[in-house]
């Protein structure tokens, strides 16, 4: 099965409070208040002088540090923003060159917005499995650096922070085992926030049901139930999205929300960032299933069940 051999994250040194960032973005007091009191934001990392490469490369280099770079057969850069003004067509190849992975087949995956990371793990693992070389690895690199004000405030409800993460993927390695992956896309919402008000309302009504369906199916395919899941790792757009999406309080209590006030929303990197935090804080119970979930504008719902290995990070002794 697909395994995560290493996952690493990175943030620039500069941190700002939500009030400081709101002021930089020209928000009024009522909007600023909304982000702190309603959406649960507190602070985030944000450095306007940071390049996209400065953001994504440190985590990628850390993920690569334990392996022979020649074993990396695929480099997949996944980005949430997919307009050409946000990510140039040469970005993935530049990352390959800067990492010295000249022999890795390199491309980018996108157009699931913040859900793309889970698909990228699945694509990476599937390519390795099809190739059949147990020593081969794939590096999944995530991170976006929106340059324009409008892209730093997503859907009126998220302030995008700076954060990136990378995962080293293997087939049948010794790391965290991916036990299932389920994804559903509802293309009638492909216009995202450009959808009509009626479609946006329809999306809000559909979202809770479909998210839980996907989660249940992922658990079922992994041979467990949602009750068995020790923790659900979701993106960090804000707290209200998840309150609106996961109506069941018992299920919502399994979600890891601690990084929303720490880092705010780092787009497609959130799920891996949160995985790293849980590992560093020794909050995984080894060999008990956990779950990634993601919702991407446009509109994709994904869930992936995994079992942390004993070296992923167990409880504090």
């Amino acid at each position: 099965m697909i395994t995560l051999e290493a996952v690493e994250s990175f943030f620039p040194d500069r941190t700002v409070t939500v009030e400081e960032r709101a002021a930089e973005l020209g928000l009024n007091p009522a909007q600023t208040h909304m982000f702190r009191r309603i959406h649960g934001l507190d602070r985030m990392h944000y450095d306007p002088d940071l390049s996209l490469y400065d953001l994504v490369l440190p985590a990628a280099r850390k993920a690569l540090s334990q392996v022979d770079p020649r074993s990396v057969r695929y480099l997949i850069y996944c980005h949430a923003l997919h307009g050409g003004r946000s990510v140039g067509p040469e970005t993935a190849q530049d990352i390959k060159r800067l990492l010295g992975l000249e022999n890795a087949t390199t491309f980018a995956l996108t157009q699931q917005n913040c859900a793309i990371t889970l698909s990228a793990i699945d694509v990476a693992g599937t390519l390795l499995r099809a190739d059949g070389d147990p020593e081969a690895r794939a590096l999944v690199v995530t991170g976006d650096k929106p340059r324009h004000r409008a892209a730093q405030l997503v859907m009126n409800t998220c302030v995008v922070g700076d954060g990136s993460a990378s995962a080293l993927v293997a087939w049948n390695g010794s790391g965290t085992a991916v036990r299932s992956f389920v994804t559903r896309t509802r293309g009638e919402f492909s216009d995202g926030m450009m959808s009509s008000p009626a479609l946006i309302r329809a999306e809000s009504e559909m979202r809770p049901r479909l998210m839980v369906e996907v989660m249940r199916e992922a658990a079922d395919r992994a041979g467990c139930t949602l009750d068995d899941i020790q923790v659900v790792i979701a993106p960090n757009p804000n707290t209200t999205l998840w309150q609106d999406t996961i109506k069941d309080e018992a299920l919502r209590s399994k979600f890891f929300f601690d990084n929303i006030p720490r880092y705010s929303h780092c787009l497609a990197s959130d799920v891996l960032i949160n995985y790293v935090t849980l590992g560093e804080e020794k909050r995984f119970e080894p060999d008990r299933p956990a779950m990634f979930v993601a919702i991407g504008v446009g509109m994709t719902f994904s869930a992936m069940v995994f079992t942390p290995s004993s070296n992923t990070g167990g409880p504090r002794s």
Partner: protein
Amino acid sequence: MTLRLRTAVSVLTPSAPAPASRLGAPDGGDDAVVEVGGTPDHEPDGQPAPTGHARLVDLLVDQVPEADTGPDLVLLAYARPEASGFKTVASYLNMRTGGDAHSLALCGQGLGAPFSAVRVAGAYERTGQSSKSLLAILDCAPADAADRPDASPADSGVLLTFDTGSGAGAVDTVVSVGSAELASRLAELVPEGGRLLVVLGPGGDPGAVPAQGADLHRASGEGHGTGVWSALVQHWTEWESAYPVVVLCDTDPGSDTSHLLVLRAAAE
């Protein structure tokens, strides 16, 4: 790999730029967002007419027989992105072809993106995760194409569907090689019986095509990254009965890398 080409359609159409009202924020910040307090720019009925990649998707899907839709994997590949990222076109393509697929876009590899997309489709097929996949390869002319001598003011697209099986259209190999290696790789593909057809993109070196046992077809350069695929659509019916092996070869001038897709045909 037993991925097999089932359907192939293409479109080449004069570019239709997005109306000014949909070009996005003046600062270019138009990636699936609206400003706080802002209002999305909707057409009166809330459903703006498709432009760019979505328009190409409509033109392509309308040509595909319904029996060939309903894939479980939908891939969208392009060499150059649309400027605006408002619409998630991979999701739209998924909806237009059945709505039950795992869908995403593959890019960031120049002319190699469609080749890697076939490789991904083949991997999902070989691992039993897909039995029916669909790939759209799209290109929209840049806004200033009409004023540039090096750019065609046309939008182009190809849609391929794949199923599982051997015989005509079976995908044999997808590989990328440096230019120094291209001639030897092509020489290895010359079959013992019959001839090899090399479909070469605009940047390819015809000198790399074997002098013995091979024929050359030069693809047009009207679309960026779609030329060899459009040629496949236009000529596959005749090629599959005339050649045991057909190889599509597109060369990225920037990286000096040639991407090859080897197809087995009925004449084998």
